[in-house]
């Protein structure tokens, strides 16, 4: 069994466990009721988007420094995953917001900074795709990805720095404002999405490397 297959199988098993923990084993919230169960996919998709942005940042810096095509494959793979998971974060947040807040969207600092991250990473993919010279496109894509990563601390601290509708972090260094079964469901889901991210990234990088060889890159 290859490393990728092991990761894929582990991700599937962990996701199945996370769905059980989130939908069956955890209780409804005192205020949100059953809608809290949407958090067990919303928070992990946001976490995975952060992981993808961090990978883009590190791989992008390494690519601009070393000009090694392997780092470019990693940068563009992580950029694509950042778009995917930021999009899912916005969508699941919207699905939660409609019944709980009464609106699909509001001009809240957390929502706006997340939407900006989504647009910046779409731009990072676009500049790659539209560049006449693929090497120039790779450099531009890496630069946009690195600049976009600056938005992540803004997203994270937006609920602290600004008056927002979005709730503040439930897990901080000093306090965990979650009941144990809810915390278990959330942590299991975060773990499952982390393994899923590793699987998707490995698969996407393999595709990128093979396509580079095919293109003579």
């Amino acid at each position, binding site marked *: 069994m290859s490393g990728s297959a092991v990761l894929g199988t582990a991700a599937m098993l962990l996701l199945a466990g996370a769905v059980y923990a989130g939908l069956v084993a955890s209780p409804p919230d005192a205020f949100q009721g059953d809608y809290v169960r949407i958090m067990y996919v919303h928070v992990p998709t946001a976490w995975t988007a952060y992981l993808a942005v961090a990978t883009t940042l590190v791989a992008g810096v390494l690519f601009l420094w070393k000009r090694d095509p392997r780092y470019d494959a990693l940068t563009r793979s992580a950029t694509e995953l950042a778009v995917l998971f930021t999009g899912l974060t916005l*969508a699941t947040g919207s*699905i939660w917001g409609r*019944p709980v807040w009464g609106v699909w969207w509001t001009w809240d600092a957390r929502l706006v900074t997340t939407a900006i991250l989504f647009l910046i990473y779409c731009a990072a993919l676009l500049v790659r795709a539209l560049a006449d010279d693929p090497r120039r496109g790779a450099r531009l894509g890496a630069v946009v990805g690195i600049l976009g990563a600056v938005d992540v601390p803004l997203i994270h601290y937006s609920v602290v720095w600004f008056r927002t509708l979005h709730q503040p972090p439930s897990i901080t260094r000093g306090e965990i404002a979650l009941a144990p079964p809810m915390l278990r469901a959330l942590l299991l889901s975060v773990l499952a999405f982390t393994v899923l991210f590793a699987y998707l990234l490995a698969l996407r990088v393999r595709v990128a490397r093979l396509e580079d060889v095919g293109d003579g890159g």
Partner: protein
Amino acid sequence: MTPALWIALAYGLVAATVLLYVLRLRRRLRQARPHGREGGKS
């Protein structure tokens, strides 16, 4: 809509998106392999 439907919508959207992405990557991987179907003809 009941809470169950909203929850199904959120979980279903994430599951369907990830599944479609994996299937697309696996198809691209097959096509890009030097000894894939195209390569096997020569």
